[in-house]
């Protein structure tokens, strides 16, 4: 009888197919920030994807800078501290969600991935826009809550449904970082922290729900389209502006120094 029960147990394990994998990720920053809200939505959407593949992501919110040994990557919303945190992260991928410093890009830190656009990227986007719209008081950002093209409509709706507030650029940066990690881990579930960082740097078709594929430059900056925003906060258009040279790299390339 006992051996019969064991046989049933073994069979049910076999039916469960691939072994479940769980990956721990960490967050350093304010407990009440748009970037954290976006990050949590991105983790939830990665777990929706992972539910079909027996992969789960967990997020630990840290109070200090000490990263737990088990964490595969760290998301950071703490402007001015990225270089410091990256240096102490033991080679793990450190996602910069909010610091737009150009010098930080030019430093080309081996394990920093900058999701938020640099100041120079935004300035180049505005300059492209002003060629066709002289005198226009525009600014540029990673995201706009009223964007509908490509699949922006869908992501804006999901964020609004989840939080009751519109999705801004910081929220998008958090969401994208979590989805980039999630989608990469789904494909390479055996990854350690170094393999994950390598796979992220190699990825050339990441989906930011902004149309063009996203990828990382040698500086660690995410290549991405931007939105142009008017003085009253209204959505004006997208950059690269049609006809501008250089494609996505026409927006703020920062050579390594």
């Amino acid at each position, binding site marked *: 009888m006992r051996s019969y029960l064991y046989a049933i147990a073994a069979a049910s394990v076999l039916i469960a197919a691939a072994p479940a994998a769980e990956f721990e990720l960490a967050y350093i920053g304010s407990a009440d920030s748009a970037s954290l809200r976006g990050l949590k939505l991105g983790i939830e*959407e990665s777990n*929706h*994807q992972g539910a*079909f*593949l027996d992969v789960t992501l967990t997020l630990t919110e840290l109070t200090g800078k000490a990263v737990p040994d088990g964490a595969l990557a760290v998301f950071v919303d703490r402007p001015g501290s990225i270089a410091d945190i990256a240096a102490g992260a033991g080679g793990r991928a450190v996602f910069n969600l909010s610091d737009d410093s150009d010098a930080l890009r030019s430093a080309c830190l081996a394990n920093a991935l900058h999701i938020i656009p640099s100041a120079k990227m935004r300035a180049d986007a505005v300059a492209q826009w002003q060629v066709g719209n002289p005198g226009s008081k525009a600014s540029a950002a990673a995201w706009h809550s009223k964007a509908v093209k490509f*699949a922006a409509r*869908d*992501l804006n*709706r*999901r964020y609004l449904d989840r939080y009751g507030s519109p999705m801004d650029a910081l929220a998008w940066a958090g969401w994208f970082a979590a989805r980039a990690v999630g*989608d990469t881990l*789904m*494909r390479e579930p055996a990854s350690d922290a170094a393999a994950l960082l390598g796979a992220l740097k190699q990825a050339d*078709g*990441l*989906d930011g*729900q902004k*149309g*063009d*594929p996203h990828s990382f430059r040698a500086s660690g900056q995410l290549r991405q389209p931007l939105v142009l925003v008017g003085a009253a906060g209204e959505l004006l258009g997208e950059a690269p502006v049609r006809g501008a040279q250089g*494609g996505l790299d026409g927006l703020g390339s920062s050579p390594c120094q």
Partner: protein
Amino acid sequence: MLRILTALVLLPLAQALAEPTHRLFVTNEAGDSVTVIDTRSGEVEATVPVGGRPRGIGFSPDRKLVYVALGNDNAIGVVNTASLKLERTIPAGSDPEAFAVHPDGTIYLSNEDEGLATALNPESGEILAEIKVGLEPEGVGVSPDGQQVLVTSESSNMVHVISVADNSLVANILVGARPREVAFSPDGKHFWVTSEVAGHVSKVDRATNRIVVANKQLRRQINPRVKPKGILLSHDGERLYVSMGRGNSIAALDPETLAVLETVETGVRTWGIALSRDGKRLYAANGPDATVSVVDTTTMSEIKTIPTGEMPWGVALDD
């Protein structure tokens, strides 16, 4: 038992096709209408108002009806292929985007904002099943033997394989980012899938549900703006036609190797495609251009453009 009897009765009926009208039906996503083109004259015959945000389009098995997915109306619109009357709309769950019609008449559709695939009986209006899939489900395909349904989830980057017998998920296949559409080989041994953001076309073996070959170099081989969307196999199985979205073209790929054989420039954001019964004409919707391109497949050249309503999305040809 009743189901089996129904299937036996329905199948012979399904083969009794209506006389072809030679009409091309085009959904106008922003025009809330369907443009009807007489493909023999190449002229627009009618514009039929259908309701909010029509995208996916396809025929009933007997081709007497054209179904359109009305995302903003949460319904499937039913247009009579011959009279061009909008006969009725069928509630279809939230935000239906695309669908495929099973040979038994069941409509399998994707509910984009709910992460669901829905099986709908268009005659009774009964929702037969709702299957949880990934985020932003889009392309739907029914296998040639009618036993499986594929649904792509655009934001979860998967092709879900659903068993028709019990509406269960039998596999979830990760593919390149933003999978859009699927096409089957006639023997059912393979399917191909387009990945819009990744820029890939992949071929999947259905026995193992694994990718056996993928072309990830389409942007280098065609142009940097390529975004693969529509996909169909030529009737002789020799060519896989893929629309390239903002790549503003259609490519003919080798179905085995996925190598690019030929390309033809079409309009802006080439989206849904359809192939004539004789295999000589491809029709493609160019969204922002508000046109349909007519392509001669023997020379791979665009021979005509035909105006449509606003933002044409999908095409279906009754020939």
